[in-house]
């Protein structure tokens, strides 16, 4: 266990940026998002949810899957082998860290997505424990401890004037060694302070819902009239899906000019009409009702069915705060039968 004074973080980041491309939460205009570290740009370690979740580092909104040249002879070039420069993410919150393990279930299951795997392998996550939940946080619903981030390589806890850092993986330990010059040994007092912060982080949740038994309950809810009411407000934008740390659906598109081109994978959203629209005109999800249902059923029923009961939600609250029409998963969990206590 090591520590560093918060006043010396610039030094820490300077060292980290020598180890790889360092990204941390930075405010630009009104938006806080992960951005490449720059000496004179202050990081924002207070905001809990970045605009986009860190999934963008593993599964970018746009990435080249393959390049090709055609004409005389067709040549295909695998672009995934170029993915995965050494990257360090600083300040990833526990919910977003947990979301990556859900994303792994999709992209690291057979057949493994090579680009994703390489990025995962070459990225070090330095998680930052939360001190106090925001009103829209409900990570506890999914058994995520806001003071811990088991999926991270390093965990940093803000004890007031210092960050106390613990290695949680081999990659994390190696990085700690490289940072020896800027870090101090933590004391037993620090250890107690860390425990206090972690314990306190779990208190003060305003939003308490339970998903206990929800997946099973939803087995019979596909035809529920609930969906007829719910969807009407939806304006079919992609805010909820693009901002969601666990949403992972994509499209493949061609970009070509002359005799060469590339195939690009880009985020897609089940909220959009053309997501399931087939060439002949048939659309198995013809109205927004089916699309809204697909999104929530995927998160709360299909995904758990496919992946050992785990829900595809980490309670980060981005969709709760950002949905233009306040149609969010919290509402669905509450109304479809998750137990409620608290607000």
């Amino acid at each position, binding site marked *: 266990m090591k520590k560093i004074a918060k006043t010396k973080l610039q030094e820490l980041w300077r060292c980290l940026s020598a180890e790889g491309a360092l990204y941390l939460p930075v405010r630009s205009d009104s*938006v806080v998002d992960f951005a490449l570290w720059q000496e004179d740009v202050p990081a924002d370690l207070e905001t809990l949810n970045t605009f986009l979740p860190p999934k963008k580092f593993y599964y970018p909104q746009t990435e080249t899957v393959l390049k090709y040249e055609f004409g005389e002879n067709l040549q295909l070039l695998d672009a995934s082998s170029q993915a995965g420069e050494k990257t360090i993410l600083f300040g990833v919150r526990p919910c977003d860290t947990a979301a990556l393990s859900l994303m792994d279930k999709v992209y690291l299951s057979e057949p493994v997505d090579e680009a994703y795997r390489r990025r995962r392998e070459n990225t070090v996550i330095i998680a930052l424990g939360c001190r106090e939940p925001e009103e829209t946080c409900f990570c506890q619903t999914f058994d995520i401890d806001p003071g811990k981030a088991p999926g991270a390589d390093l965990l940093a806890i803000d004890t007031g004037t210092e960050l106390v850092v613990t290695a949680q993986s081999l990659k994390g330990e190696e990085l700690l060694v490289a940072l020896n010059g800027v870090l101090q040994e933590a004391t037993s007092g620090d250890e107690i302070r860390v425990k206090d912060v972690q314990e306190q982080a779990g208190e003060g949740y305003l*939003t308490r819902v339970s998903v206990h038994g929800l997946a099973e309950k939803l087995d019979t809810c596909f035809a529920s009239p609930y969906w007829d009411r719910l969807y009407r407000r939806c304006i079919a934008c992609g*805010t909820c899906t693009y901002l969601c740390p666990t949403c992972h659906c994509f499209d493949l598109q061609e970009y070509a000019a002359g005799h060469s081109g590339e195939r690009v994978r880009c985020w897609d959203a089940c909220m959009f009409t053309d997501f399931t629209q087939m060439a002949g005109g048939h659309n198995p999800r013809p109205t927004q009702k089916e699309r809204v249902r697909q999104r929530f059923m995927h998160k709360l029923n299909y995904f758990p069915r496919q992946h050992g009961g785990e829900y595809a939600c980490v309670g980060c609250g981005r969709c709760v705060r950002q949905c233009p*029409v306040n149609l969010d998963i919290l509402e669905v969990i509450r109304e479809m039968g998750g137990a409620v206590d608290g607000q």
Partner: protein
Amino acid sequence: MSTASEKLRASAAEALACGRVSLVLGWRKKDFWWQSPVAFVEAAAEAEQLSFDPFSVYNPVKYLLEATECHEKVGVFVKGCDSRGINRLLQDKRLEREQVLIFGLPCSGKADPAKIRAVFPAQKIREVAQEGEELLVRLTDGQERVAAADFLLEKCLTCRHPNPVVFDELLWEPVPVRAGVDVSRFARVNSVAQKEILERYTYWARQFDRCIRCFACRNTCPACNCRSCIFDQAEPRWLGKASDLADTMNYQIIRAFHVAGRCFECGECERICPAGIPLQEMNRRLIMDIDKYFGPYEAGLDAGDSPPLGTYRGEDPAGFDES
């Protein structure tokens, strides 16, 4: 004297009970103090859920497009900004006047949750209610009164038409236009316009770079009411799916251009943009130039007039070299 919410409930219940309409669009309260989504009320007994509070912002007008497909007549509550959206749909022939029963709600402006959070700890806020010129903020440990005018949404600070411009019934007395609106309306546009050209590009590139192409700006906009949007077309494909800055600018320029002369400044696109892109600065730039070259025009005030890009005069000046 009954509260605003009570008046909404009574009007909706009455209209539904006597069968004048079979659906009423208003607002209701949801879980959090800042959530007031649009409510779809189909029976008099359900009218109780309606509320009109400092966060009843979302413009319900676009829902009319789908609602009037399955309801002969729909009741809708509109603030000044929302009402201009109705004229938008009427002018675009996407709605018939007889299909809607319009309840007008004069509005002195809605509250910005971010401004409230900046003053009060969000964790402690239970409710924020309008009481005359003040906001009553109920906290877990007491309550406070603050001047509502200090917490207005950006879009409300520049509102020229706080009173509905088209309605069947007005639920309460009209309110005055805020002082200084005409100056502030183009203030942000002018401050960007004053920058050097490269600076302007850098500014906009930074804004557009955040765009995730969720299309919330388009989908919420009553002026974006085409049955099929060119950006959704597969053939020819006008917009790629990859998030490339040039293509995002393509989307944003054309989106703004397609509502040029038709944008009625409700500002919802900017308010709901998850990436915080100042879209009104583009929309208003177009309005500024339309005013300058073709004469002052405000969209959505009169469903019977002609939008400036749908007409011309022989003596129009040109914004380019005509020699």
